[in-house]
């Protein structure tokens, strides 16, 4: 929606109404949601008092359709955080519609919709307009009266409807009889109005639904472009710092075991000669990953993240590499080119880590968090501290 409150506006309004600084307000809001995250990771459940509860849910694999190409795609099983508002919140938000109540509808009514001849619907419209002139909210009063009738004498209504169905009366005749039998007339009016309401409601619902979907896509696109941007900025930063690092530290001596050199050298030299040949080198590296590589020579413009993906097949294992090569005082985002890294081996494999691996990963993540803290990136530090807790839990399972 267009009138959604931005985070900065939210923080500002909150700070002003409580006479606190915006920094404090932001810290409080972020603090609350970070605690929520911790809760979610620990127990899969979390809640904000008198607001709502969050729960981690597993979503099973299903097939979907790519909206752009119409192609069938498999959406893999994943976890999802779901939110359920508490009663207090629901009630406050729904205040403008709280007077509306659910009503029973006759089973016959929806089926009779296609049978109605065209002149009849015209009369319905006329009646509707007349009603609207008389009353501000015709639907409500009519539906309300129908509800009363329903609860009072359901049987009578059913009988009457049966009668009406037997005699399929054309509208003029029906109008004439209206004066004779006011009850039946009112009932017909109610039923026809209901059909109209249901029809309009359904139409709105579908319209809204399709609109909502496209809106979701736009949001997703925006978000992805945002992350791309931030990635660009980050890579620019790392490039810059790599240059600096290159000046300070000339290429360090390579301490590579002999048997590894024979395996690794061809791929690496090919890379350093020509960065474009990375595609060719890719498969070579992958082939080695299954055989447990113990060293790795950094190419230009590589992050530990990328190296971990090439070596282990999974990017999220990069703290392991960081831990065995760096100190907590190093910035994890900086990598000196042409330096040899020691790659710790895993007990299990990347897709099925053992408890020891998780313990190691927890330790490594803690160190990364510390390093980010030293580098002044407190957000990342908190993130990796959370990861480390997660791995610690996994290691105890």
């Amino acid at each position, binding site marked *: *929606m267009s*009138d*959604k*409150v931005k*985070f900065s506006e*939210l923080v500002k309004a*909150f700070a002003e*109404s*409580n006479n*606190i600084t915006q920094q*404090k307000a932001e*810290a*409080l809001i972020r*603090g*609350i*949601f970070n*605690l*929520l995250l*911790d809760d979610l*990771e620990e127990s899969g459940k*979390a809640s*904000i*008092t008198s*607001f*709502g509860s969050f729960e981690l849910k597993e979503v099973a694999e299903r097939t979907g359709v790519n909206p752009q190409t119409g192609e069938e795609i498999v959406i893999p099983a*994943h976890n*999802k*955080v*779901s*939110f359920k*508002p508490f009663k207090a*919140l*629901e009630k*406050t*938000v*729904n*205040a403008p*519609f709280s007077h*509306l*109540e*659910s*009503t*029973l*509808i006759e*089973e016959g009514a*929806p089926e009779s919709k296609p049978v109605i001849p065209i002149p009849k619907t015209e009369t319905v419209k006329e009646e509707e307009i007349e009603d609207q002139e008389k009353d501000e909210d015709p639907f409500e009063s009519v*539906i309300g009266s129908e509800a009363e009738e329903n609860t009072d004498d359901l049987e009578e209504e059913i009988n009457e409807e049966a009668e009406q169905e037997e005699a399929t009366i054309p509208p003029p005749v029906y109008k004439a009889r209206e004066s004779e039998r006011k009850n039946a007339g009112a009932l017909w009016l109610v039923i026809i109005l*209901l059909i109209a*309401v*249901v029809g309009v*409601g*359904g139409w*709105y619902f579908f319209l*809204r639904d399709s609109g909502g979907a496209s809106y979701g896509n736009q*949001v997703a696109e925006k*978000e*992805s472009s945002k992350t791309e941007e931030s990635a660009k900025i980050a890579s620019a930063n790392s490039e810059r710092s790599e240059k600096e690092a290159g000046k300070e530290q000339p290429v360090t001596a390579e301490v590579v075991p002999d048997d590894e050199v024979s395996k690794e050298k061809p791929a690496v030299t090919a890379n350093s000669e020509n960065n474009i040949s990375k595609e060719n080198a890719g498969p070579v590296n992958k082939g080695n990953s299954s055989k447990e590589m113990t060293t790795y020579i950094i190419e230009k413009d590589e992050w530990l993240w990328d190296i971990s*993906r090439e070596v282990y097949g*999974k*990017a999220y294992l990069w703290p392991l590499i960081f831990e065995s090569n760096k100190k907590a005082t190093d910035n994890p985002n900086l990598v000196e080119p042409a330096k040899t890294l020691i790659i710790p081996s895993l007990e299990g494999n990347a897709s099925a880590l053992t408890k020891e691996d998780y313990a190691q990963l927890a330790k490594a993540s803690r160190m990364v968090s510390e390093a980010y803290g030293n580098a002044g990136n407190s957000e990342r530090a908190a993130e990796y501290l959370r990861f480390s807790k997660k791995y610690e839990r996994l290691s105890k399972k």
Partner: protein
Amino acid sequence: MNKSETVKALSEQLDLTQTETEKLYNSLVEQLTKHLSDKGGFSIPDFGSFTSEIREEYKSYNPHYKQMMLLPKKKVVRFSQSSALKDEFNEVEL
């Protein structure tokens, strides 16, 4: 973690007394609720966005009355997780 535990943890983080923190906490929840009822909702970075939208009336079967019911228009709260939150609980593969 219940409210008092949350408030305690927050008061330590923010260097405030627990009474102050609880007051702020209550006021925040009140404001978030207000944003949802008066505006279209709000978003929390790296967590997700909360929106309120009007759900049109619809028909549904009521097993108690064994009949179809017309359920009225309602304003409901929806939550949509951010991509960062999604990655948090799923192994990221790039």
